[in-house]
């Protein structure tokens, strides 16, 4: 019994704090595991079954995973997803940080600009899908008009397998940037003014203050956004749906299909291969988990917290 208590700390005070901590996290943690953890586990279990939601699940061992291994569509979806993550995450973070820095300045109309940049977050997905399909439409689209003078007016953005990922990157960044901007703006506000004042007294210029005050102080927010952006970029779904559903969902020959779209099509497509979809979800989960763990380990090198947590 006493060794069990020791788990919670060596002194009565640390034990007390440990109990408080557990008490505080209990409601959310229990709720999360009940309403999300449990269904997710159930879904992972189904990756070892053949199930189409209408039949009795049949245990097939690792057959679904073997099929995945041999499935060229899966490989293509994985490649597309990795490409998208590689393009989207740096662009999204760079642009939204720049935007937050710009709109954190004393500029005329900054409230209006902030609102405008937030608009994509609330604009209807249907409206977005129609307009973006129009922007990238061959011949009549705005993109064609813009590129016409350079001789690229007839690019087939939404059909050509070599081009189709570009509009998806654009729409993804467009949709997310306002969201990240909100987080960065809140993060920037948490940078204590005294630090900037001190740096100015020491004669630091704008760039030096950004580099040595703003960036380190902002790093917890940057880490938050980096992690979330990575997790959600691996799950890009809406944007592909938006951009490609008018011509061919997932692109010609799957040239724009992402893992989560492939998962959805497998599970909710007409053949309703839910066991297979669960196997895709499991692999996707393992990839994201691996990368997030690496990020969590790496953050100790570059993320600066005001106080070492819980010490």
């Amino acid at each position, binding site marked *: 019994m006493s060794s069990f208590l020791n788990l919670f700390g060596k002194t009565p005070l640390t034990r007390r704090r440990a109990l408080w*901590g557990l008490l505080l996290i209990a409601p959310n943690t229990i709720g*999360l595991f009940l*309403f999300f953890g449990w269904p*997710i586990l159930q879904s992972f279990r189904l990756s070892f079954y053949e199930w189409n939601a209408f039949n009795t699940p049949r245990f097939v061992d690792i057959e679904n995973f073997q099929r995945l291994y041999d499935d060229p569509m899966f490989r293509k979806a994985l490649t597309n997803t990795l490409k998208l993550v590689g393009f989207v995450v740096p662009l999204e973070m760079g642009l939204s940080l720049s935007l937050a820095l710009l709109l954190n300045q*004393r500029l005329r109309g900054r409230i209006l600009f902030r*609102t405008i940049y937030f*608009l994509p977050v609330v604009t*209807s997905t249907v409206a977005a899908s*129609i307009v973006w399909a129009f922007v990238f439409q061959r011949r009549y689209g705005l993109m064609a008009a813009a590129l016409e003078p350079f001789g690229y007016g007839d690019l087939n953005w939404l059909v050509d397998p070599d081009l189709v990922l570009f509009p998806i990157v654009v729409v993804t960044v467009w949709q997310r940037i306002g969201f990240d901007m909100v987080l960065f703006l*809140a993060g920037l506000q948490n940078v204590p003014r005294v630090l900037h004042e001190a740096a100015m007294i020491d004669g630091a210029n704008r760039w030096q203050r950004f580099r040595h005050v703003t960036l380190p102080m902002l790093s917890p927010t940057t880490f938050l956004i980096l992690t979330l952006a990575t997790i959600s970029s691996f799950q890009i779904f809406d944007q592909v749906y938006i951009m490609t559903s008018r011509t061919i969902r997932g692109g010609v020959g799957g040239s724009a299909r992402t893992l989560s779209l492939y998962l959805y099509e497998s599970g909710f497509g007409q053949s309703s291969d839910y066991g297979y979809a669960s196997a895709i979800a499991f692999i996707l989960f393992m990839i994201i988990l691996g990368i997030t763990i690496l990020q969590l380990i790496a953050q100790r090198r570059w993320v600066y917290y005001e106080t070492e947590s819980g010490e």
Partner: protein
Amino acid sequence: MMQKAARDIPPSYERVPIPLQVISYVLLFLGAAIMLLPFVWMVSTACKPPQELTRIPVTFIPENQVCRANLDGLYDRVPLFNRYLLNSALTTAGRTLGQLITCSLAAYGFARFKFPGRNILFALCLALLMVPLQAFIIQEFILINDLGWRDTFYALIVPGTFSAFALFLLRQAFLQIPIELEEAAMIDGANPLQILIYITLPLSVPALAAFGVITVQAAWNDFLWPLIVSYSPETRVLPVGLSFLIGQRNTPFNLLMMGSFLGTLPMLILFILLQRYFIEGISMSGVKR
């Protein structure tokens, strides 16, 4: 002189040299046009008669503006629009308040207390974000159905009162707050709940405003989950109610956009109201740093 300027004008409102200002404005205007485009189309379509919907290329200013007629048309096709709006508001309020409580408690627990399994538990919570909803929505629906919550507000609200996303967001914010103030309160005999409510949360106003905007809009726009659990107009939320306009064969885009625009307005107002707190949060809380 330098010191005076530094004191008077906080860095967040720093004066910007003219060339930099010009570049900023050019970039901002260009970006704004791209951000605005679909929204402008949404508003202009909401005021178009059916004949103008099929123009190629798209017209951004309708020749015949029939906003009023489309508004009436929308209420004609979706007579329970106001009811759906109310359901959305109830659901959103319930989820946001719930998350505010459960997630700020949990975020505080994870940020400031040491207990066995803390890192593993936190990582597991985070891991829940890594599985797309489509992968487990059937299992989640089975659970809700077993609880007898099919077609009830419990199904719409309760799962949404727990969030790994908000937990992560608030934990990162709490970690940025100097611990000294909390320690002082602790010495004064305040318990952790009191410290959270009177010290930590007021110091986190910018993060809370961001949390509010993001959580409210996510709940407001949530579509797939409400669609799966709700089967009667009594529990139908706005995005689901509007999706009835999207037919297999015919979609009155003007009415759909009118509905979407009306549904967007509350979010815009909320954003405009809350966005000053991203900037002025600290001074509002009255705590000097």
